[in-house]
């Protein structure tokens, strides 16, 4: 796979102009993701109303892959139920492990499908995964399955 197809236009676009970047005025949950070794740091915040993600956003300083993945994730997650997003996470995990996924599943990922090339860079899978791990903790906290102070890492 060529560099240009790994760092494709959609990935670069999301990294340079991240969607859902910033703070939500009245968020009711946030989780920090921190990959200390490489210096990726994000905070994922959401406003959850009646089991649905009404608003979701992230801030932080991260590499192109982590920034783009966070942007794509938020794009896909806003307005969705916890189960819907959890389904996206499980597809994305398979995707990053280079396991075959159906066209339907690929569609489900939205823009995040453009991150296929990251699976060819084993040391960078953690960058694309950080927002999903932050989400995973957020979901667990919403379901009272995780303590409120958890900071996640994928290193």
């Amino acid at each position, binding site marked *: 796979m060529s*560099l240009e197809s790994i*760092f494709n236009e959609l990935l*670069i676009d999301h990294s340079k102009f991240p969607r859902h970047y910033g703070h939500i005025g009245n968020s009711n949950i946030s989780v920090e993701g921190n990959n200390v070794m490489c*210096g990726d740091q994000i905070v994922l915040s959401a406003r959850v109303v009646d089991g649905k993600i009404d608003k979701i956003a992230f801030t932080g300083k*991260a590499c192109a892959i982590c920034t783009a993945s966070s942007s794509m994730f938020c794009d896909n997650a806003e307005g969705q139920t916890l189960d819907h997003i959890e389904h996206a996470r499980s597809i994305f995990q398979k995707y990053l492990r280079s396991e075959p996924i159906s066209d339907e599943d690929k569609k489900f990922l939205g823009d995040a499908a453009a991150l296929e090339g990251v699976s060819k860079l084993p040391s*960078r899978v953690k*960058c694309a995964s950080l927002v999903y791990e932050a989400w995973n903790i957020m979901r667990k906290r919403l379901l009272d399955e995780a303590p409120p102070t958890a900071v996640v890492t994928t290193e």
Partner: protein
Amino acid sequence: MALDPALIRKSYPIYRHFAGTGETFIYLDNAATTQKPDSVIDAELAYYREFCANVHRSPHKLGEEATNCFELARASIAKFLNIDDPSQAIFTSSTTGSINIVANILAGQYLKPGDVILLTPSEHHSNLVPWQMAAARSGATLEFIDIFPDGTFDYDQVGRNWNPRTKVLAFQHASNVTGAIHDVETLSGLARHNGALSVIDGAQAVAHLPVDLNALDCDFYAFSGHKCVGPTGIGVLYGKRELLERFTPVFGGGEMILRVQRQSSTYNALPYKFEPGTPNIAGAIGLGAAVEYLMGLGMSEIASYVDALAEYACQRLSKVDRVTIAGPLTNRTGAISFNINGCHPHDIASILDHRGIAIRAGVHCAEPLMEALGVASTARASFYFYNTRDEVDQLVSALENTKEILGQ
């Protein structure tokens, strides 16, 4: 005589391997670990294949040969670092292992509540975390020297700001991030004058410049084999004789004792007192071969070759638009950290890797230094004597291409 990298590479299996496959192999991660020449690999293999036995205990020919080679390796290391007595060179697992031994000894037998351990903010975590643990255990506190944005600092100011409660001055001989080389002789003299012990992390320096421990006159000095063409898993702790004799060991076991009774034991003489258990025999023999190899090339020749190459690399890199170098331009090793405005170091490293160029990206086990430099992380290209100007040129052109790929 000036070094010839083309000739040098002929003795490195890894360069022969990539010459065979035709793949681009530009290895610029020497501050993390260096490549190994035939003589080092052969020395380790010979031990396993021809005279594998335990040292200092087996009463047979093989045991004698293993012991002999193990102690010859120690003698080579003593010669390499100009240590008067080889028994002051203790085999450990690594620089980290060595510093942990010293920090443990000083925490239990020397530091008192209220004492100060003085460090620089540039320390590798291996020369910081053990001191945090020693401070927590002894009630001492940590203080830090002020550094300039390039990682250097003012020695006179260290003297002027000296806290009389300082009992340990621990610092790196050279930085793994900025490449800055510090004056060990001056700083350990300052510590001695003020009644403090000096502990030096020599991991980056030993590979790059002649180190004369007799002249530097520090109290403890630690280094790793793998950063100076030797094997992984082996390192050395040097200590002044009177200190090594005064302190009792922190780890007990076989080899480090003379007599063992039910309730107590008598410890062995130096260096064995600090080498419990079967040591990394193959690693020690490999490290002996590594320092012999380096002495064969000449440490002054290595230093001048790498100095010239690093100066060229700094010049070329500083002309690349939006590149900032985090370190001094002179009196440095071959480790060059840099950032490209708008490009994250990890993206740079991945793209270069795709072009066959291996660099490191991240915080380089020096998180407090990143904070002091005002960056989240850096990219780092680190050069050694088998690298060339042509590789610098290829790095620079790959960086231009990286900016394009990342849309910058």
